[in-house]
């Protein structure tokens, strides 16, 4: 696999199954870092993380350390966090504020737009020393939509518009819930790691099939999940206990794919008429005050449950958050989850969302922990050599066009979305692309 010929890679993906090496082969992982994480549009961060000139946050795109800065002219930059002198990581904090970014090793100092500003003992620089050419490397292409910043580490490829276009509505779905029409990712972050391949997490975010069994421990004897959101009287009906089977309402849920590996599941009703509490009612009123009653009702009627912006980001509409997937090794992955503050909503409403995320998606949550256990066990099980194939055939051939969304529709308990991810995966992994 080391040479990574496209035809050899193509043999790993069949219409309803995936070869286990896709999850376990370290050479394939290296190729993914080069061909997917080195090419694709990746979510970097949100402009609300760097509100003022001099603000910065650090993250990783694939395994590459990057800095997102706000420069003195207000522009946002995605810079590689690597000194152009001898290679040290320049910024070591997760977030901060500085006029200049100074390397700890020999003191090279960079402006927040990446330009090399000062070099200690400049008289030692040779005649050919070109300060202008020694700024921090920057992501060759960046794009932004409603504050969400993406970058591609390749200078050519599909445009940002081509990539994000089909998912703009999904971003709108979330942002429009803020009475002021903007979000802030300024409420900290959850971080978890697991000993498993990054795609196990990517496949899971749109997987509605696993919920009744994988999250059985969150479902009570009446088959109902714990109440999740501010104002909810009870949680989702997941299991019909008398029949001991997945509830019909759960089986009816739909999933959608829109090319590029992207997809989403529906529907999560934000307001079924039964959701009520002083805090939620107050939020509804504030939203209606800002956008009008009609538009507020539209925003609160059946919405998206979870959206995947392939390959490294998901937006969850139910317990609102943004999730970023960071591959570390073929069998090791870190995930960061940002709570979302809806600008213009009350502190109590935002707290309700933050508190909910603590119990659904922190490393110590009721929900995510069982997923992590499944990912770890999958990675262990996939070591088996006698069963080489992973089955992703549920609903194969049952996909249908959805004219309302210009997407392809299937049942959420099917595996159409996973097949769409592997179609995109093959596209990236194809050497000639």
């Amino acid at each position, binding site marked *: 696999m080391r040479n990574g010929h496209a035809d050899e890679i193509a043999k790993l993906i069949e219409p309803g199954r995936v070869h286990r090496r896709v999850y376990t082969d370290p050479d394939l992982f290296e190729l993914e870092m080069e061909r997917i994480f080195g090419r694709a549009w990746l979510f970097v961060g949100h402009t609300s993380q760097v509100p003022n000139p001099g603000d910065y946050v650090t993250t990783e795109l694939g395994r590459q350390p990057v800095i997102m800065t706000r420069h003195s002219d207000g522009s946002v930059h995605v810079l590689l966090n690597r000194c152009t002198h001898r290679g040290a990581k320049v910024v070591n904090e997760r977030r901060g504020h500085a006029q200049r970014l100074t390397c700890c090793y020999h003191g090279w100092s960079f402006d927040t737009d990446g330009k090399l500003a000062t070099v200690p003992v400049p008289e030692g620089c040779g005649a050919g020393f070109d300060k202008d050419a020694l700024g921090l490397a920057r992501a060759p292409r960046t794009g932004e939509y409603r504050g969400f910043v993406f970058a591609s580490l390749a200078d050519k490829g599909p445009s940002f518009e081509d990539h994000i276009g089909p998912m703009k509505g999904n971003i709108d779905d979330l942002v429009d819930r803020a009475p002021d029409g903007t979000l802030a990712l300024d409420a900290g972050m959850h971080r*978890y790691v697991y000993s498993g391949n990054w795609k196990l997490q990517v496949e899971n975010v749109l997987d509605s099939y696993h919920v009744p069994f994988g999250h059985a421990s969150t479902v009570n004897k009446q088959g109902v999940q714990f109440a999740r959101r501010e104002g909810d009287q009870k949680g989702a009906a997941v299991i019909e206990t008398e029949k001991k089977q997945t509830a019909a309402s759960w089986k009816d849920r739909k999933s959608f794919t829109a090319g590029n590996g992207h997809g989403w599941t529906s529907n999560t009703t934000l307001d079924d008429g039964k959701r009520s509490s002083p805090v939620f009612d107050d939020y509804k009123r504030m939203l209606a005050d800002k956008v009008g009653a009609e538009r507020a009702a539209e925003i609160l009627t059946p919405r998206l449950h979870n959206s995947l912006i392939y390959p490294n980001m998901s937006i969850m509409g139910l317990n609102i958050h943004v999730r970023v997937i960071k591959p570390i090794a073929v069998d090791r992955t870190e995930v960061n989850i940002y709570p979302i503050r809806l600008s213009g909503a009350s502190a109590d409403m935002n707290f309700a969302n933050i508190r909910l995320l603590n*119990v659904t998606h922190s490393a110590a949550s009721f929900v995510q922990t069982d997923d992590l256990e499944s990912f770890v066990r999958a990675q262990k099980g996939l070591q088996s050599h006698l069963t080489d194939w992973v089955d992703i055939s549920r609903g194969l051939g049952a996909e249908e066009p959805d004219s309302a969304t210009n997407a392809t529709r299937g049942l959420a308990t099917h595996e159409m979305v996973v097949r769409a991810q592997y179609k995109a995966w093959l596209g990236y992994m194809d050497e000639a692309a």
Partner: protein
Amino acid sequence: MALATRRLAVAAGIDRGPFEDFLIDEARLLDERRFRDWMALFDEDGTYWVPSVPDQKSPFDQASLFYDDRDLMKTRIERLEHPRIHVQTPPSRTAHIVGNVVIEHVDDGKGEFRVGSTFIMAEYRDDVQRLFAGRQRHHLRRHGDTFRIVQKRVDLINCDAAFEAMAVPI
């Protein structure tokens, strides 16, 4: 600061012993997986908080590893008792050690106390052993001849690290 308040507490005739005993008993309930008995130590308005950044000011405006009131605690414990909690199959085994107990604040009028201590918890599960350590602060309220917890705050030294799944309270 802590030293001075301890001298005050001693001067006021407050014996550290009952506080230390309470913390040891609390840790033991967790180690014996007697989660319902553990929850019963919390007062009706009691909360259990594990911040996700050092010196976190508030659980209300940013993410926390745990911030449970009694209702969430109950849901958490019902889940821990559920036969199909995959992340506890097999269950965690833990051993706590609690020390360096300091009475940091005494409010005689309300019968409330703030007690700081240092802890180490080793956890073993499914062939992996890991270590949690940090400072904890118990806000206690006198209740008959014992205490109820108003808040237990656990500041892990690695609170802002990326964690593998954590199923049991610390």
